[in-house]
C-alpha cells in the first residue's frame, strides 16, 4: 500500500510512491540519492540526520517521508548557493570543524539554523544550540570556533548588504 508524496528537496520537486513506514532519511538517501544526510543511530539521539523542513531543523530519522508530503526540505547538498559555500560551511573549513566528516552535515544544518535564529550567540549559546548533534572526533571546540567564524561572516555580509 504505497502512498504518493510530493516533496521539494533543495529546490527540486519530487513525486514518489513510498511505503508509509519509509523514514524520511531513507527517502532522501535511497530514493533521491542524496547521501549527504547521514544515519548515526536509530533512537533520535545523534543528530547526524538533521535537515531543514520548511526552514526548521528536524532529525529526519524520526519522521516518515509521508509526514513530509508537501514540505520543502533543505539538505546539506542544498546549502551552498550558486557554487558559493554557506558561511557555516566556510567556517567549518577555516576552523577545522570536522575530522571524519560523518556528523558534519547534520551539525552544519543545526548550526545554520542556530545562526538564523540567533545571529550573535555566545559560546554557551552555540554549545546549547548544537547539543543535539553528537561528534566523537572533534571534542566540539573547533566546531564552536567554526560557528563563531560563520556568525562574524554573516554579520559582515548582512551589514554590507551581501
Amino acid at each position, binding site marked *: 500500500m504505497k502512498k504518493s508524496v510530493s516533496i521539494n528537496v533543495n529546490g527540486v520537486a519530487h513525486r514518489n510512491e513510498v511505503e508509509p513506514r519509509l523514514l524520511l532519511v531513507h527517502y532522501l538517501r535511497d530514493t533521491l540519492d542524496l547521501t549527504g544526510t547521514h544515519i*548515526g543511530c536509530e533512537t533520535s539521539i545523534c543528530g547526524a540526520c538533521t535537515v531543514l523542513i520548511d526552514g526548521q531543523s528536524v532529525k529526519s530519522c524520526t519522521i516518515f517521508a509521508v509526514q513530509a508530503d508537501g514540505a520543502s526540505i533543505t539538505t546539506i547538498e542544498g546549502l551552498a548557493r550558486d557554487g558559493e559555500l554557506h558561511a557555516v560551511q566556510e567556517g567549518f573549513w577555516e576552523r577545522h570543524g570536522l575530522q*571524519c566528516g560523518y556528523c558534519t552535515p547534520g551539525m552544519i544544518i543545526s548550526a545554520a539554523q542556530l545562526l538564523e535564529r540567533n545571529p550573535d550567540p555566545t559560546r554557551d549559546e552555540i554549545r546549547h544550540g548544537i547539543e543535539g548533534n553528537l561528534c*566523537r572526533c572533534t571534542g566540539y571546540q573547533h566546531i564552536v570556533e567554526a560557528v563563531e567564524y560563520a556568525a562574524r561572516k554573516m554579520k559582515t555580509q548582512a551589514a554590507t548588504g551581501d
Partner: protein
Amino acid sequence: MSNKYVGQRVKRTEDPRLIQGLGHYVDDIKLPDTLHVAFLRSMYAHARITGIDTSEAEHAPGVVAVYTGKDVAEKVGPVPCAGALPGLRVPDYRVLGKDKALFVGHPIAAVVATDRYSARDALDLIMVDYEELPPAVDVEEAAAAGPVIYEEYGDNISYKLTAGEGDIDAALASSDHRIRQRIVHQRLAPVAMEGRGVLARYYPGEKELTLWSSTQIPHLLRTQVAIMLGIPENKLRVITPEVGGGFGSKLNVYAEEAMLGWIAMQLGKPVKWIESRRENMQATIHGRGQVGYVEIGCKDDGTLTGLKYDVFADLGAYHQLLTPAIPTLTGLMLSGCYKIPAIQINVTGVFTNKMSTDAYRGAGRPEATYVVERALDLVAAELGLDPVEVRRRNFPAPEEFPFKTATGLFYDSGEYEGALTKALDMAGYDQLRKEQKEAREGGKIIGIGVSTYVEICALGPSQAMPAGGWESATVRIEPTGKVTVLTGASPHGQGQETSFAQIVADQLGVALEDVTVIHGDTSIVQYGIGTFGSRATAVGGTAVYIAVEKLKEKAGKIAAHLLRSDVSNVTFNEGRFSKQAARAAMAGEVPEPVVPAGQAPAGALPEPDTEGNHVSLQDIALAAHIARDLPEGMEPGLSATYFFEPKNFTFPFGTHIAVVEIDRETGDLKFLRYVAVDDCGKVINPMLVEGQIHGGIVQAMGQALFEEVVYDEQGQLVTGTLMDYALPRASTTPWLELDRTETPTPVNPLGVKGVGEAGTIGATPAVVGAVVDALSPFGVRHLDMPIRPETIWRIVNRQN
C-alpha cells in the same frame, strides 16, 4: 626544505567534499541490483542453540537467501586473532554461531533480501531454540570459578602473563610505605559516528571479489579475509571509502566482513550490510575492561621504589584481532614518567559472555597511565605532599635519556619537567591552590587534578608487532609535474590527505594543490599496515618523506644530465635545479617564477626548458617519461617507493591540569579550567594536532565521568542504544586550553611522535584526580570511573 606549508594551519583538502555532503561513506556507494543483509543476533549471553528454523524467513517477501552457522561451518575460516602470547588459548570463532551463542549480539543467521526493510522484517520470522546457560559476566568471578564458557578449557582463563624487571617483592618489602588500591577501568564503547558497514561485489567470470569496508586496515583486511574465504589474496580488492571515525574499533577483521564477501560469491550479486547503532553497541569491539590491583612502594620522601599491578582483563567471549595483546601494552607503560626501579605486571586474560574487547583509543596505555597517576596521587595523599612535588621528585633528568624503564623500554627523548612547568604556569597552579583553600573555607567544593603522562605510539618496530609495523609510500611525479602520493596509511578523519601533501609540497617546492594523496584501495596502493596507534604521520609520513628524498636524488641526476653538469654542481631550491655557477651569479636576483605544473598549450605537452642554467621539476618529470635524454643506464619514469621500518616507538608526553567545581545540591560538576601541554614532537599542521588532542581529551572526560558499557547479571547489554550510553555533548564539554612543547623524536627524520591518542591517555587521570581532590575533605582518596553525579552527591551529603 622550505617551510611554506609544514608547521602552518593549512586548511584541509578533505573538507570541501565533506562539508557539502559529497563524500562517499560505504552506505553512499550504490551498485545496481544490490541486495541487503541483516543479521539475526543472539538475545542471550550464553546459550546452546539446539535448533534454528529459517523456512518462514526464506519465503518472506523480498528474501533471496537465509544462511545459518551450518551453511558456513566448513566454508569460511575462523575470525583471526593476531595475538601470539605463550600459552594463549584462542577459541575457534566462526562468522556465524552454530552450536552456542556466546554473547548478546553474537550473529547466528544472515538474511539477504531485495531491500533493507524486508531483510529486517524477515529476522523476526527466524525461529531459534535456545537452551539458556548461566553466563560468566563479572570478570573476577569468571576468572575464579563460575560458568565455564569453553568446556574444553576447563576454566575461563585465556592466558596469564607476567612481565617487568627488578625484584618487586624485595623492593616493596623495603619501602617505607606501601599503598594498595583496587582500580576499575570500565568497558567503553568507541561509538564512531559511522558504524561499521560492508559492500561486497563478486564478478564470477573474473573470479574477483571487491569489498568496500569502513576499516582502518585495508591491506591487512584483504589478507585475512582472503584466508578466511580460501581465495587468492590478489583476487580480492579492498576499498576503504570515506570512514566516519574508527578510534581503533575498525582496526580489526570482523565476521561480517568475511560473511558479506562469502554471500556475494554465493549469489553473484552485490550485497550490503550497514550496522545499526544497536548492533554497533553489541557487536563492535569494546574498549578497556580491566579490574586491577596496584601496589606502589615509596620512601618517606616520596621516592618510588616499586610498582606492582595485578590485573584481570575482561577479554569477552572470543578474540578479535588484538584482544589478548591490549593488556600487555598496559604492562609496557607502567613506569609512566618516573624512575621506578622495580615493576611487575601480572595479567590474567579472562573469557566472559560479552563482546570482545580490543583496541580503543589508547589501547592499553590509558589504563597504564591511569594506574600510575592514581598511584602517585595516593602516595602524595599518604605522605601529605603536593602531587606535583611527588611527580617532580621521580622524573628522570634530561641527561638520563634515552631512559631505560623497568618494563624494558627505551624512552627516546623527554622533557617532562618542561611540559609540567609550562602547564603549571598556564594554569597558575600556585594561585589555584590558594583559591581552592579560600573557596573551601567559603563552603565551595573545588578540586585540582594533575596528570603527567608519557605514552608509547607510532607503532612500531616490526619485532614487536603482530603483522609488521613499517609503513609504505610510493611517490610519483607524473609527466605534467603533478605529484601523486600512495600511502599505506588509512586516514579516517586525521587529515593525511592534507598533512602528507604539506610535507611533499615543501620537499619538492610545488604547490599544495598539485599533490594528491591516495589511500585505502588495495589495488592502487602498495601493501600498507594502516592507521592506528598514532602511527600515520610518524611512520607513514616518514615513508613518504624518504620516498620523496629518493625521488629528488634521481631528479638531481637527471637535472645534472640535462644541464650538462655534475651532480655535485647542481642544487635544488623551490622546485627547480640550478647549476652552482649560475646560482652564485644569481645571488641577489629575484628567482624566476616556476612554470606552474600542467599548464601546457592546449593539445601539447610542454617542451623541457633547458635554457642552460636551470631546469624545473616539471621539465625533469617530462624528460623522465619521454626518456630520450637520460643518463646512461637510468630507468625511465620518476617514481619511488619506500617501506619505512621504525627502529623504536616514540614517546609523546605532557601535563594536563583539570580544575572542577562540584554542586553540593546535585553532585554535578563543571570544569573551571582545563589546561593541556602536550609534546608530540614536530608538528606538521597545528590545527590537526589541536583537533586530535581536543577529541582525545573529550573522550577521556567521557570515560572519567559518564561512559560505561553495562551488562547485567544475565549478561544482557543494558547500554544498547545512545539513549543509555552517555556521550559527551557540546553543552557538557568545557573549553580546553592547549599549548605545546616540541621535543623532536630521533626515531624518524621528521621528528614527529604521533598525537592521535595522547589526549585520551593524559586526560583521564587529570579529571579523576580533580574530582578526588575536590572530595578529599570528605575523606576520599580514590573513586572508580565513571564518577557519576549520584556518587558525588552521596559523598558530599554523607549518604553512602
